[in-house]
Every structure is written in structure tokens, then in C-alpha cells.
């Protein structure tokens, strides 16, 4: 075969070093894969909320693994124990590794103490997706919401995470907001830790 380098073959995946991995993955490959994922799930469910739940579960599995891997690789084995710590971890480190840039903004909700929002002008997963009119409130960002939920829940901060379209004046396409609502016990623990 042309150009075969001498790559060391490992008998078992456990022997292979973790390493930095590939920094970049083809966007088109991901877009095709994601569209297949959505289409497959569409055939399996009866309504929109079930579809969103399935995408969220798929993202949850990713989030659980991303948390462990990134804490080991990028943060030198230090865990996050505070709310703001884990939120900025998601907002910068996780976003940078998954989408190549930090999220546009991280805001604290004004109405409720336990709500936080991560906003993005255009989610990478939505770039090649258009929602038909009769699927009104459906948002493929449910996958990303699932990733965030996976990271938060496995780190010990259970939360309800959802993705919403927020119309912005002066722009044709609405902005995407990931809304994070933390559980009671997270706030109680935060208050206790002072």
C-alpha cells in the first residue's frame, strides 16, 4: 500500500496510550453522522418530546465521557467542587474541545436563583439542519443539552438542561440558549460550602 508508515499496533485498547488524540475531525463527516442519528430516531418515536429525549440521552453518554477525559487530560487531575467552577469548565474547556471555540456567553438567570444560560449564536450541530414548520419547538440542540447534562450530573451537580431558540432583533436566525436549572440539593450544598 502506498505510504504506510510504521504505526505500532496494540493488542488491546488498554495498552494504547491515551495521548492527545486527533485535534480535529471532519465537519462534514460529523454532519452526516448527526443527520443520520436524527433521522433514525425520527422513525422510532411518535412525537417531538420523545425525539428530544432520545437526542438528550445520546448526548448524556458523550458528556459523561468528556468530563472524565478532559479532567484527566487538560486539568491535571483536579476536580470541580463549586458551581461556578463547573459552569466555566463547561463554558470554556468542554466547548473548546468539542466545537473549537469557547461558548459565546454564560449568564445567570435573573428570575430564579438556580438558572444559568449558555448562549451561542449558532450551534455547530444545527448548522446544516432546518426545522420544518410543523415541528415548531423542536431543537436539535437537545443533543448539546444532553452533553452538558452528562457533564454536570456526573460531576455531582444534577440539573435539568434544555435548548431553546431565542429570537434576536436585527438578526434573521434566532440565537440558541442552553438553559440549565440546578436541583435543590446543589444549591443547598453550595450554600453550605460557603
Amino acid at each position, binding site marked *: 500500500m502506498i505510504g504506510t508508515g510504521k504505526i505500532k499496533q496494540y493488542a*488491546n*485498547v*488498554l495498552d*494504547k496510550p*491515551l495521548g492527545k488524540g486527533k485535534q480535529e475531525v471532519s465537519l462534514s463527516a460529523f454532519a452526516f453522522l448527526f443527520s443520520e442519528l436524527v433521522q433514525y430516531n425520527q422513525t422510532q418515536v411518535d412525537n417531538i418530546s420523545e425525539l428530544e429525549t432520545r437526542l438528550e440521552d445520546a448526548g448524556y*453518554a458523550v458528556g*459523561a*465521557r468528556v*468530563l*472524565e*477525559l*478532559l*479532567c*484527566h487530560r487538560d486539568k491535571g*487531575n*483536579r*476536580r*470541580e*467542587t463549586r458551581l461556578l*467552577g463547573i459552569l466555566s469548565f463547561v463554558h470554556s474547556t468542554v466547548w473548546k474541545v468539542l466545537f473549537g471555540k469557547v461558548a459565546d456567553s454564560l449568564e445567570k438567570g435573573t428570575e430564579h436563583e438556580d438558572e444559568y444560560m449558555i448562549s451561542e449564536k449558532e450551534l455547530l450541530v444545527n448548522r446544516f439542519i432546518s426545522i420544518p414548520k410543523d415541528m415548531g419547538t423542536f431543537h436539535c440542540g437537545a443533543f448539546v443539552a444532553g452533553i452538558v447534562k452528562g457533564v454536570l450530573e*456526573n*460531576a*455531582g451537580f444534577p440539573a435539568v438542561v434544555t435548548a431553546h431558540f431565542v429570537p434576536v432583533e436585527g438578526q434573521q436566525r434566532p440565537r440558541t440558549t442552553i438553559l440549565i436549572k440546578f436541583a435543590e440539593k446543589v444549591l443547598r*450544598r453550595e450554600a453550605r*460550602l460557603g
Partner: protein
Amino acid sequence: MTSTACFIIVSRNDIPIYEAEVGSAAKREDAAQLHQFVLHAALDIVQDLAWTTSAMFLKAIDRFNDLVVSVYVTAGHTRFMLLHDSRNEDGIKSFFQEVHELYIKILLNPLYLPGSRITSSHFDTKVRALARKYL
């Protein structure tokens, strides 16, 4: 040098997903159960301690007769617990770090359900080899 050591990996939901007697001393049936009991009893202490520090290695957190319980908590709150009688803290820390890498590789398998038992025999072999090396 004979040493008793019992190693357990406990998931986020307090379910043991891997256990191994890794000491070089002769194994007794009742001792194994006693070791596991002591480790489970130490879980409460770990839970409180885990939120006070951002380090992963929690050193020795509990004692039982002359045995010491050392714990290492990962980012996903999976606890590696070791019941041992040695005083070699650096060796234990290196052991935990190497097992952590192995655990991450197992976790990255998309077909592995996080929180389920680790059944890979290769993983078992490697953990025992690491235990002989560091403990």
C-alpha cells in the same frame, strides 16, 4: 514482603463495579469479606471529604486495626478505594493514577454503560500487575 490489600472501584451510585484482592499475603475467605465491609463503611467519610477539596487523591481517610483505607476520587465521582497495611503513600498515589488511566480507557468504550461492572479480563490482569509493581 507480604502485604494485605483489597482494591475496590465504586461507581457514582455507590455500586461496586470492580473488586480485587491484590495483596501478596495468603488469602483467607473471611478476611476478604471483612475487607469489603470496611471499605463500604468508609464510603460515608469519602462522600463528605470529596466536596472539601479539588484534589483527586484523598490519602488515608480511615483506619481499621492496623489497616488503612486510602481513596482516590475521579471527576465523575467514581471512587477507587484501597485497604492496605503499607505506608508507601507515593506508591499508592502512582498506583491510583495508573488505574485511573485504565479506567478512562474502559469508559471511552461507547458500548460500556457507565456504572456497570467491569468484566474485561485484560483490565483485571493489568490492575494486578500494577498492584504488584507499586504496592
